[in-house]
Each structure stands twice: as structure tokens, then as C-alpha cells.
């Protein structure tokens, strides 16, 4: 079920040809149009499972009769990983397609660009995947809500675990851009708050996507830390793990690692998955709550593939949108915002709330350890870390979010 503009136009034209102009009017009032933007060609490994996720959600919602008696119609666009293209496409969706709201984005800068467009043009925007804290705090505003747990939340989940460890000497390795810098900043701050005795003895800042893994591993080993906080992901992570495994970096050291338990990042490690890393992630094959089980089965049936984190995010994004519209009783932007503040959604991970204070969803993540099973990486000893427990106190949030409208 791929919904695209041309298909829709062709469909509308055919309808118009058959039934005359009034049919278009009817067709338009019959669906609720939602504009969706993501980096499909740039980072397909993450965005294609995400697309599957939202397509499943939309299918389910429409099969159950839609929202407010109308079906959802998604018009999806590829931003090619460029914020400037995303802004143009946002304009197209709003002005040409007359969508009632915008959703999507994976990369933080693209998310922020669309968010800023939404603020300027007073359009509701549901940021699906971008992690940057700025989305809901420094650059947060009335029109933007965010589903996925932020950099801060994920770092806080791991800082909690790290503070329990007997480790006193930490090293960090992180891609040198905003996400990596924020993750390290929060991790340091939160760990040191609980454990004033720990030291950070080395920092490595490989360029995103261009890690010189052998040299980086060697440099960390040289500082001889007891624990390593890793923020690298994707190909950087695989390179880092391979060089680290071969050079024995991880032996006798604890590694705490952001996002590494997500199938998107864990699966490519294959039989070289390092064991015993403390990670945030998504043990898709082991969560057997009835809600998740139903989701997993529906997903596997429809796509003949297993769900990734992106699939859940895509799925929850559109479930949340549907819930917001339903609660608002209309597609009016102001009504949607009012409805979304404090909106509770019963998701596949459990219930979560869109906080009124900063529009951040309290969707959580799973924290556990990595292990090898049948030649592939899995998460073990995991627990669900509810997002609501990993957010700073309200007064701190208010300070970090200047836009109070």
C-alpha cells in the first residue's frame, strides 16, 4: 500500500471523469490528508521499516473505519536527507495537497527544519524519529510534538545503569556532531551527579560515518579506562566493534552503548556482536505482551519481515495522530494541539503520554544487555524503561524551553 501523489491524482481524475466535479469535493472531504516527510533514499535502512510501520497503522485505522468517520490518506515525500528540501516539500504538502498536519523525519536537522517551518506557518507537526533535545526543548514550540525518546532520555537510561557499576574511569566515543555531543554531555552530567568519584579519562570524536576505527580503538585502549560509553552507530559502530574485538579493547571493560540494542544497529553486527554491553534497544522477538504480539504478527504477515524500532515509531506516530484527531474531534490545528497536550496513547510498548509541558511523548525504550544467540546479536536481561522516569524536573524543562506559548 504505497500512497503517493500521482496515484492519488490519477485516482481523483478517474473519479472525476466518472462522476463529474462534485466527486472530487466528496473525495476530499472524505479523507483526512496527512503530509509525511522522511529521508527514504538517504537512510533507507531506517526509514523503510518506519514506512512499513506507518503503513500498517494507517491500514488498521482505515480498516476500523478511519477517524471521525473519515479515512486517513497519507501523502509521503522523500527529503533526500536535506533540510532545505524537506522545507520545500513541507510547503508543497501544506499549500498544494492541503494536508491537515505534517509528520515524520528521522534526521535531527531535517526534523528541526520542518519544525521551524511548522512554527512559522502555524502547522501541526508530529516529529517521529529525530532525537535532538532541541526538538522539544531549546527549539520546542506550540506546533511541534515528538514521539521518540530524546537523546537526553536515552542517555539518562544508560547513566542510571552506569552509575550502578563499579567503574571509576570512563572513556567516551561519539560521532562529532550535535547528537553525539549532547549524548556525551548528558551522560557525563548524569553519571557524575550520582557518582562524584568517577572520572572521564578519554574522549574520542570520530567524524560521523568516517570513523578511523583502528586508530580510535588504539587511542581508547591507551587511556586504559574501566568503562566505555559508546554513541557511535551504523557503519561506524560495526567498524568500531570489529577493531575493538580484534584488538581486545572490550576485554575486562564495561561498555555502555546508546541505541545498540535496536535491530537496525544490532543486526548488522551479526556473529561479531559483542556480549554484555549495556544498551538501549528493542528486543522485538522477546516482548510477548498481547499488544506487542499482535503488532509483531500483523507486521510479519504484511511485510514478511520482522519489525525494527523504526517500524514501531512509524506505527506509533500514526496511531498517535489518529488518537489526537479523535480526541480533538476535528482537524483544526488549534484543536489538535489542545488535544495532543496530555494525550494518552495505548502503544505496543505500553501507554505513553504527550506531555503538556514540552510536547515530548513518554514513550520509553528497553534497557538490557547484548548477547550472542545462534550467530546473531540479541538483547537479554532487558526491562522496559518508561520514558516518564527519565525526564528532568519540570522547572528544569521550563528553563530549557524558552517558547512557552
Amino acid at each position, binding site marked *: 500500500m504505497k500512497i503517493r*501523489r*500521482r496515484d492519488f491524482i490519477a485516482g481523483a481524475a478517474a473519479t472525476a471523469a466518472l462522476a463529474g466535479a462534485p466527486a472530487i469535493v466528496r473525495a476530499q472531504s472524505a479523507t483526512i490528508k496527512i503530509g509525511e516527510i522522511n529521508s*527514504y*533514499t538517504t537512510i*533507507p*535502512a531506517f526509514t*523503510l521499516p518506519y514506512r512499513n510501520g506507518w503503513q500498517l497503522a494507517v491500514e488498521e485505522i482505515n480498516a476500523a473505519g478511519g477517524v471521525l468517520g473519515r479515512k486517513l490518506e497519507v501523502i509521503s515525500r*522523500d527529503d*533526500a536527507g*536535506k*533540510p*532545505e*528540501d524537506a*522545507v*520545500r*516539500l513541507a*510547503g*508543497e504538502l501544506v*499549500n*498544494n495537497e492541503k494536508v491537515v498536519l505534517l509528520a515524520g523525519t528521522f534526521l*535531527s*536537522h531535517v526534523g*528541526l*527544519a520542518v*519544525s*521551524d*517551518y511548522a512554527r*512559522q506557518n502555524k502547522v501541526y507537526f508530529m516529529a517521529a524519529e529525530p532525537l*535532538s533535545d532541541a526538538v522539544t526543548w531549546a*527549539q520546542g514550540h506550540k506546533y511541534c510534538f515528538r514521539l521518540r525518546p530524546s537523546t537526553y532520555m536515552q542517555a539518562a537510561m544508560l547513566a542510571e545503569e552506569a552509575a550502578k557499576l563499579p567503574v571509576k574511569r570512563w572513556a567516551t566515543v561519539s560521532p*562529532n*556532531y*550535535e547528537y553525539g*555531543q549532547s549524548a556525551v554531555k548528558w551522560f557525563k552530567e548524569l553519571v557524575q551527579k550520582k557518582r562524584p568519584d568517577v572520572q572521564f579519562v578519554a574522549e*574520542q*570524536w570520530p*567524524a560521523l*560515518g*568516517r570513523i*578511523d*576505527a*583502528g*586508530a*580510535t580503538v*588504539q*587511542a581508547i*585502549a*591507551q587511556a586504559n579506562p574501566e568503562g566505555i560509553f559508546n554513541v557511535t552507530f*551504523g*557503519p561506524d559502530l*560495526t*567498524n568500531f566493534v*570489529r577493531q575493538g574485538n*580484534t*584488538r*581486545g579493547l572490550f576485554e575486562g571493560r564495561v561498555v555502555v552503548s546508546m541505541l545498540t540494542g535496536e535491530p537496525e544497529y544490532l*543486526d*548488522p*553486527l551479526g556473529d*561479531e556482536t559483542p556480549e554484555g554491553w549495556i544498551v538501549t534497544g528493542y528486543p522485538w522477538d522477546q516482548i510477548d505482551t498481547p499488544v506487542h504480539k499482535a503488532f509483531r504478527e500483523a507486521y510479519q504477515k504484511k511485510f514478511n519481515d520482522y519489525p525494527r524500532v523504526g517500524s514501531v515509531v512509524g506505527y506509533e506516530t500514526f496511531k498517535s495522530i489518529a488518537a489526537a484527531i479523535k480526541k480533538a474531534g476535528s482537524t483544526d490545528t488549534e484543536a489538535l494541539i489542545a488535544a495532543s497536550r496530555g494525550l494518552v496513547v495505548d502503544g505496543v510498548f505500553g501507554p505513553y503520554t504527550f506531555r503538556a509541558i514540552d510536547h515530548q511523548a513518554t514513550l520509553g525504550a528497553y534497557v538490557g544487555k547484548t548477547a550472542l544467540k545462534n550467530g546473531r546479536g540479541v538483547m537479554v536481561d532487558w526491562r522496559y524503561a518508561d520514558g516518564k522516569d527519565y525526564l528532568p524536573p519540570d522547572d528544569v524543562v521550563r528553563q530549557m524551553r524558552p517558547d512557552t506559548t
Partner: protein
Amino acid sequence: MDFVVAQFLTGLASASSLFLVASGLSIIFGVSRIVNFAHGSFYMLGAYLGWTFVTNLPYGHLGFWGGVLAATVAVGLIGVAIEIVLLRRIYAAPELFQLLATFGVVLVVQDLTLAIWGPQDLLGPRAPGLRGAVEILGQRFPRYELLLIVVGPVVLGLLWLLFHRTRWGTLVRAATQDREMVGALGVDQKLLFTSVFFLGACLAGLGGALQLPREPVTLAMDLSIIADAFVVVVVGGMGSIAGAYLAALLIAELQAFMLVAPPFTVLGIEIVLSKMTLIPSFIVMAVVLIVRPYGLLGRPMAHARAVTGMIEPVVRPAPRELKLVGLATLAVLLLAPLAAGDYGLIVLTEIVIFVLFAASLHFIMGPGGMVSFGHAAYFGLGAYGAALAVKHFAAPMSVALILAPLAAGLGGVLFGWFVVRLSGVYLAMLTLAFAQIVWSIAFQWVEVTGGDNGILGVWPAEWASNAYAFYYLALVLCVAGALLLRRIIYAPLGYALRAGRDSPLRAEAIGIPVARIQWAAFTCAALFAGLAGGLFAFSKGSVFPTYVSIPRSVDALMMVLLGGVQTISGPIVGAIVYAGLHEQLSRLTDYWRLILGLAIIVLVLAFPQGIAGAAQRWWYRGKGEVA
């Protein structure tokens, strides 16, 4: 000490990897003068094919080394196919036009790879017997890296033997020095070129396949390697294999040791080298080119322009009919808001901004003969100039739009001073180096530039905030800018610039200070690119490092080449066609890169002088005049 040795060995292994890719690029350039943008694609295909041959054939597999070898040859054959089908037809086109064709190949390969191998990163197998590590001075060092350390020099040695001990090698070296001479010797040039392309592609494929035990196979491999490979080739000296190895060694070791350099303070600013991992190779390139304009071991080569045998057409005043077409286009643009709708206006605004951006690049590329691979630097400096003025000094839009070209112009003055001392591809690569330095500052200096999250809230002033008003603002400024550039091209300054391009010797001999004129032109182009960047910032409401990135520079290059570098209307036509195609295709289909790539290839084959160039020829032929 032991640690230093391990770090040094690590650097050696990285150097070998870099060298394999770069050597192929260097060989291809040396003989054919083709700047092969698709070389990164060959590297990526080598990795993907290697992965398939080693682990995933439907019936059994070829083992690790068999798979690597098969991938190497397969990529070589793909290279041959591309050379025969595509590049061979356009050797006579203007310098660097082949770049456009190879860029089309890059786009096509990206989508085909995604379609064949899927989106997920693939984990390559380890090499048999080389999985573990050995102990060197108490440090564990991967066996496979040891192998890589050996592979680089071995390939270097084999290439040396090939070039110095075989007739074919002698011919290739002769062709690198002087292509016409080889033609005069009665050698089948076509066969020579094809075989060189085969060798170059094989080396890229081998480089990719040998990465299997080190790196995952990803869809981003092509673009992540290509810039590095270019840097290595240029630092070493184009066409010099030994130079490429030396450069790879220099850059890899520098990167390895930068990671462990302790922070130090210069003029009160703390410098953390281990954080500046993006720029060292580009700084090395800039320094090497400034000190040695032909790279470490490169030699001055015959001007590539002479080799193509193309005579630059005379620039004549536009015929009355063309002026009418121009006026009609302008009239359409003026009246467009009546019919375009809000989104149409957004797209039109973007296109008129790109017209100015492309025209500014054309100004130095066409009349100036200076190809820039880093024109986005000035676009980005303009955009950041405007955005920083708005954010940090609360400047109104009008002031920011004055500051934008000034900031870019300043960059042009600074970088241009170095750039005009070089020529040809070296010049182009120095512009790229400067652009990458600007980009990495924008990307990594988070406190000032916001890093990759950019600067938000750069929206137009109240009076220009609706799409109509902003469109007219952009239209007026961009058309005025493009017309002014056109005016300059026809004025003495433009003539002097062209004189320096046509014959630097003669120009100097009639008192034209060629370098100074080029410097002025470079600054001028930067100014207008900056204005375009400033307008772009306000049209988008935000500024990001992507504005300074290589793809943005490539876009400008594509627009100019597609339109036709030898015609003044070329960049305008190119910008409209390229931006329009991109906008339409990206909404039409997921496989827009494939279609855009194919469209570029078709256009390249159909209009080797660019679209406007072809139109001009057709026009003058119709009139029976000599163009």
C-alpha cells in the same frame, strides 16, 4: 613507544586501503583526463559484489580470495562497459564535461545497489586465517591489518612493473604525458583508454572487496570514499602512482596520530585535534597545493583544454531573437504568481535563486576557465552570514541580505588569492578543500553555527513574509545579479578574464595581470553566490551545513555543465532544467535518483555542449554562420 608503533601500523593499513582506490582514479585521470566521479561507485560495487561472491551465491561460493578476485574483475568489466557505452562518445566534449556523465552513473548505481542488495548494512566475512590478532610489542594488532599493510606496497610495486616493464605501460605513461603523441604513434587510442579504465575500475573494486573484513558494506560507501580518494590523488600529484601512495600514507598517519594528540592552546584558543577529524586531509591538500601546485610528485601537464581539440566558440552578443526569448521568460516569471499557487511560488523562488548561484559559478568556469568543485562554500558563507547576523545581532532582513554577499565575498578574497595561483583540476580541488574546511567548521563548531542542527528562525521581514512578496524580492535580486554578471562578461573585465583563459601567455604579454583579474572574478562570483545563499536562507527559514556540502557544489556544477559552459545562457537553462527535474522526479517516484541519473546520461550524450550550447550551434548552423 609500543603504542606509537601500533598507531603507526594502523595508519599504514588505512593508507593501503586509501591507496588502492586512489591509484585507480589517478591512472584513469592521467590518461583520459576524466575526473571519474563514479570511482566511489566502483569501490562500493566491489564491496557489494565481493560480499555476494564470498557468502551469498545461489550455488556455493567462491571462498574469500576467489570472491575478492571475482569482484575485482567484475567491477573492471563494469568500468569497461561504462567507458564503451558512455564515456567514449564524449571524449571530445569540453573539459570536465565527462564529470557530468560520471555523476549520472553515480546516481544510477546508488539506486540499482539499493534495489539489488536492499537497504540494510551487510556484514562482510572475515578473511580465512586472518581473523585474530598478533601481539606486537605488547599490543594486539589485527592480522588482517597486517595483510593490508603489505597489499598497498605490493600493488604499488606491481603497478610500477606494469608501467615500466611492459609496452602497454610505456604507452600509458606516454599518454599521461602527451596524448596527441600517442595518437601520432599509431596506437589504438580507444583500446588504450578502455584498458586503462579496466585497470582503474579493477583497483577500485579490489579496494572495495578488501574492505569486507573491516567495514560493513553500506549504501554510503561510494560518496564517503570519493572525496578522500580525490584528495589523495591530488596531494600525490595527478597521474603519479607513487605520489598517491605517499599522500595516502601522509593522510592516514596524520589522522591516526591526531586522535591521540593532547589538546593545546594557540592564542588563547584551545585546540583539540582529536575532535577535528573532518578537516586534516583537506588542510593537508590545501597546504600541499599552495606549496607545490602539482602535488607532491606530480608534474605540470599539458593543458587539458588543448587535448580535447575543442575550439572555444566566439562569444557574440546575443541575437535579437534570444533577447526576445529572454524577455519572454522574464515576463513569464513576472506573471507566474498569477497562476503558480503557493507551492509553485516556493519552487520558482528556489529556481531563481539557483539561477543566480549557477550563473555565479559559470562566471568563473566559463569566461574564467576556473572550474570550482567547492562553489557551495560561498553559497553557504552567504547563508550563514545572513543567519548569524539575524541570530546574534538581530539584524533585519535587509541588512542581513547585504551582509550575506559581503561574507561570501570576503571568503572569495581569502580563498581566491590561493586558488588563482593554480589551474585545471588542481585549482578545482583546492576550491573543494576550502569548501570542506568551511563545511566542517559549520558542522562541528556547534557553539556558533549550531552544528548540524543549524540555525533556525531565519524568516523574512514582515513585508516579504508572504510567498508572493518574497518571490518578487528573490526574482528582482537574482535577475539583477545574473544580468550584472552578464554585463561584466561583455565588459572589458569579462574580456580580460576570457583572455587569461584563452592564452595566459599572450594575456600577460599585453599587460593583463591574469592572476589579479581571476582573483577579482573569483571574488565577484563569491559575492553573487553569497547573495543567492542569503536569499536561500530566508526562503527556507533556516541554515544548515548541507548548504556548504559537496552535493550542493555538485548541483551547481551540474547546472552549469548541463546548460552548457560555453554559453552565457547555459547556467540559466541548466538551473531551470536540473532543479525542475529534481523537484518533479523526487515527488514522482522513490527511484528518482535512477531516473535523474539516466536523464543526465541521455542529455550528456545528446548535447555534449550542454543544452544551451546545442541550441546555439543549431541556431548558427541554421543561419549558416560559424559559431
